[in-house]
């Protein structure tokens, strides 16, 4: 008998032969990126590949994941929607504002978005959050995975406009996108310091862990606004 254990709201660990991280499929019968579908007691789950998703890796690295069934999420760097699809499963009664600036990636994202009514795609540069101010409401979570040198600043600008005062920032930092030559540990320390001090609003870091072995030279960060 397969066993379903809840790791966090809407996030499950399914044991069926081996252990699978998974979310309940909001779009039954459809897969998004070649993941497996598991049917258990009338519910369909999609397996979630932590090596393909930094958020998935954060779950396995025991981050507290602040997503609820009705959360509003601003997702920066949606790419073709691998992770977005799982966030959409988790916040089945909420909304995800999926920002991506590459038209090529947006093309792929659109075919996912078209099938899920809680996804709102935005083709825009996350570094200029005013561009989507007429569309985006205050959110419970800002998730960011943009792999850009100025990612701390992008996070602050978006949090300033859109993050509720009791909301959370989830951030994936890629060392190589900041400085290809420097030591990743040093890059991470500098980025954390930027989040804590460099911009308005300032963040209080709740958790910061590297995402090994799922993603090399990546740091996951959970933060909230400093009072």
């Amino acid at each position, binding site marked *: 008998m397969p066993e379903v254990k809840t790791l966090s709201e809407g996030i499950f660990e399914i044991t069926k032969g081996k252990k699978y991280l998974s979310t309940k499929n909001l779009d039954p019968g459809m897969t998004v990126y070649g993941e497996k579908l598991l049917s258990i007691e009338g519910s369909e789950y999609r397996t979630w590949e932590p090596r393909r998703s930094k958020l998935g890796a954060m779950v396995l690295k025991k981050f507290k994941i602040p997503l609820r069934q009705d959360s509003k999420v601003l997702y920066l760097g949606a790419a073709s929607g691998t992770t977005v699809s799982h966030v959409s499963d988790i916040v089945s009664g909420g909304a995800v504002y999926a920002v991506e600036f590459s038209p090529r990636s947006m093309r792929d994202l659109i075919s996912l978005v078209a099938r899920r009514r809680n996804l709102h795609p*935005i083709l825009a540069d996350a570094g200029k959050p005013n561009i989507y101010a007429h569309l985006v409401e205050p959110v419970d979570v800002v998730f960011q995975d943009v792999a850009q040198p100025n990612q701390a600043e992008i996070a602050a600008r978006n949090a300033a406009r859109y993050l509720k005062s009791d909301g959370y920032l989830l951030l994936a930092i890629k060392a190589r996108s900041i400085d290809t030559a420097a030591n990743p540990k040093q890059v991470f320390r500098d980025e954390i310091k930027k989040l804590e001090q460099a911009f308005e609003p300032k963040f209080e870091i709740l958790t910061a862990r590297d995402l090994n072995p799922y993603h090399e030279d990546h740091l996951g960060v959970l933060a909230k606004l400093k009072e």
Partner: protein
Amino acid sequence: MRLESWFGTLDLGEDGKVLASDQFSKNVRELALRSLSLREAGKGVPPAGFDLRSAALACGFVRSSEEYDSLLHEVTLDAAKLQISGALTPDQRIILAVEALDDVNETANVLSERLSEWYGGYFPESGLSGETLGRFVAKYGSRKNVAPEDPLYARATDSMGAELEAFDEELLKGFATSVCSLYDRRKQIEAYIESSMENIAPNLSLLAGPMLGARLISIAGSLEKLAAFPSSTVQVIGANKALFKHLRSRAPSPKHGIIFSHPLINTSPWWQRGKIARAVAAKLSLAARMDLYSGKKVPSLAEKLDAKVQQIRLQNPEAPRKKPDRGLKPKGKKKRRQ
């Protein structure tokens, strides 16, 4: 205070409450087009933290939160689709063609090497390769069919190659025809790139040649990005490997990227190349900007570049005595005499 939202224009009171609203009709396409026009408007931007959903409910634009999400979903989806269909600008089309050209070239090379290997068993003395071999095999098949007036006639009759029987000949001729059609495709794509470049980047085309110009746009990602690069970057575009090496270790910074294939640079003696590359890069950078902003061809650009290069040549006629350090060896390790 008056602000713009995706569903209408709102007047807010001191306390942030919606006093009045001018709501748009619930037509998805209209809402999507308005949403796109609001992106750049810069005025009426809602204050940070403004709750659009509550406002939409309060002023009766939608009746429920579900309806809000449903409609917003359709509007953002439609807007994104409109943006995507407009995103395939002429320079993006050129980039797709450049990428296709690279694939065609690679495939043509692999297949013509295969043909050379294969046909070599039947006519090893042909001395042909690439496109000429493809045309030859497609035309004659077996070397027995080579016409007496063909310069290869003598070699064909004396060849030590095996006899090509009808069954195998069909196969080889068909294969050679495929190779030829790849070379035809290459010419077609090159012609497309040349004429498109003449249209969208006449100055870059003039100074760099259409193919090099198209490659610069392709690596930069767009004409706009290329125009925004400082000329020192234009000079090293395409030198990624050397550039990373420079950043990681202490290898010297690369002097030139793909602009090295420019005839003014690669026909110059080594001691002039760095200076000429800098001059070429500066003018290409200028040309890209002119193409982006005016689009008009300025023939005098080419003369100015030639004059500048001529001047560099005159000022540096002799090779300096010491060859510049090629920098392949890391510093600190001196070469020991044997």
